[in-house]
């Protein structure tokens, strides 16, 4: 089932954000949406999730307009993984992950023992089974991110939309999370994530889309899309691409005229 946004326009009062952005997500792929701060990445995600109405343009899921799916039905097809946040109440990790069963059960039915078992297995797959009884407010940012992903998986949705999943994670957790997302894509989940760091998708994503001036200016294999010229267009800084022994790009480095840095 493919999620496709076509020709999306959106503006906040006095500030156009999206002007003709198109982006599609299919099961089995990991897509990084790259853009500068304020480029409208989150807005595009919210529109693709049906949380925000576009001024113009269409969002289709499985060939049907997004609005045509009921809210609860939609929650069983697409899951949203928000930026890591702190909840105001100390729900346990298990309680947070169990909220992923809401679309299946509805708000009035208590989760059954089978739901609890399922969520326990998912927590185990994520490597955080030992945190099940811990308060969500007292675990680390990386563990919270894994909890929210577990909740998304518990929704049974095949498409996962993630807002800045790597933000706020330490380097080790970033690498581990990207590997995990890669393996979810290999299990035929479709994962769309935003990021503003070009080095992460360079090595971690198969497909990269660039959002610039309200449009998707490039969309394709990471190696083809992520060039120093594209980065300059996106962020306005000169960079050079460092290559590994096999000739593949591994990192961008700011190209500074300053001799101190180029010595």
């Amino acid at each position, binding site marked *: 089932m493919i999620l496709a946004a076509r020709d999306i326009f959106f503006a906040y009062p006095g500030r156009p954000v999206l002007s003709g952005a198109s982006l599609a997500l299919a099961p089995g792929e990991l897509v990084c949406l790259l853009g500068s701060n304020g480029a409208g990445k989150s807005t595009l995600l*919210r529109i693709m*999730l*049906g*949380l925000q109405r576009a001024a113009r343009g269409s969002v289709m899921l499985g060939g049907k307009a997004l609005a045509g799916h009921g*809210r*609860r*039905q*939609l*929650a*069983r097809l*697409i*899951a*949203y993984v*928000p930026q890591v*946040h*702190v*909840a*105001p*109440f*100390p*729900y*346990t990790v*298990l*309680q*947070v992950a169990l*909220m*992923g069963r*809401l*679309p299946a059960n509805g*708000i*009035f039915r*208590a989760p059954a023992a089978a739901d*609890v*078992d399922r969520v*326990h*297995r998912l927590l*185990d*797959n994520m490597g955080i*089974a*030992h945190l*099940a*009884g811990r*308060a969500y*407010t*007292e675990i680390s940012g990386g563990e919270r991110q894994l909890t929210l992903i577990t909740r998304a998986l518990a*929704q049974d949705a095949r498409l996962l939309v993630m807002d800045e999943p790597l933000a706020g994670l330490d380097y080790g957790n970033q690498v581990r999370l990207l590997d995990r997302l890669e393996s979810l894509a290999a299990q035929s989940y479709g994962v769309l994530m935003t990021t503003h760091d070009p080095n992460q998708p360079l090595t971690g994503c198969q497909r990269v889309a660039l959002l610039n001036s309200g449009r998707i200016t490039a969309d394709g294999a990471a190696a083809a899309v992520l060039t120093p010229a594209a980065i300059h267009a996106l962020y306005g800084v000169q960079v050079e691409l460092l290559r590994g022994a096999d000739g593949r790009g591994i990192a961008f480095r700011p190209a500074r005229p300053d001799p101190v840095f180029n010595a």
Partner: protein
Amino acid sequence: MIEASSPPVPALPHVHLRWMAAPLLALAATLTALSIGRYPVPAWETLHFLLAAAGLVPMEPERYALLHNLIIEIRLPRVLAAILVGASLSVSGAAYQALFRNPLVSPGLLGVLAGASAGAALGILVEGNWLLVQASAFALGLAAVGIAVGIAHLFGGGSIIMLILGGILSGALFASLLTVVKYVADPYSQLPAIVYWLMGSLGQATTGDIGWAAAPMLAGIVLLCLMGRALDALAMGDDEARALGVPVTAVRLVTIAAATLISALTVSIAGMIGWIGLIVPHIARLLVGPGNALLLPAAASLGAAFLLFADGLARNLFTTELPIGIVTELLGIPVFLLVLRRVRRGWT
């Protein structure tokens, strides 16, 4: 990936034991409240009488008539009032704390208590009978929340922050209205009546009052308890709740409507009773955790027990009765300090 055997669930079994505690406490408090007073009855005899009244065991007719007068006619209306008011304020407070994602919120946030107080004062000012005072308290309580919600929707698309601002404005409006009413009230008869009324008392509730208020209050309490799972999702954020398939706007409106209805009725029955709607949810959260499906019923039970206890103190501490609003505040502050250390867990 490895499908390991499910690890033990650390949180749930305790909860199953613990969530019985609040209803049991409420039952014990009810029995105690029916027994104590100027003419104390041993708790076992109260229980005997209740069983006899239900037709389950025999009882000497003369003793039965005496106890019937004491327990059913004198004490029961007041005990029922305490149960309904305590449960209503506590469950509303717990629901609001989840809805507004803030553990420091109380049921008066959207102005219902300020509106109802002004309404009651207005009723007293126009020399209305008791029914008019109650009706006016109820109506202005609803009006205050209506204004708050109206402001939020007209100026801010109904967002949480605009709801809170709307509540502040509406609360201030009705607080100033109350001041106006106090200012023009007769300082020898009406003003003291208004002041005493605002201190709160369960003694003014009659069987008739309880009769008409009980059904909507129970309905509101049950409705809020049913919203528990949806409120958990809302506490995580609107976008997340929507993405989990929860009808956010509907849940928010139903919660506000139910909480407003029952909070306004508490003022109609018993005047202003503060603090309970803020602290009881915290005590309940210590007992059963933050999941609202368990928390809301636990808060209702604990609120009933808490107000029965406070009313017991108000009635029996001194020879003259203390206004219950004073007791809940004096009792509430130390209790809040006691639970604060545990409660703060997870606050940011």
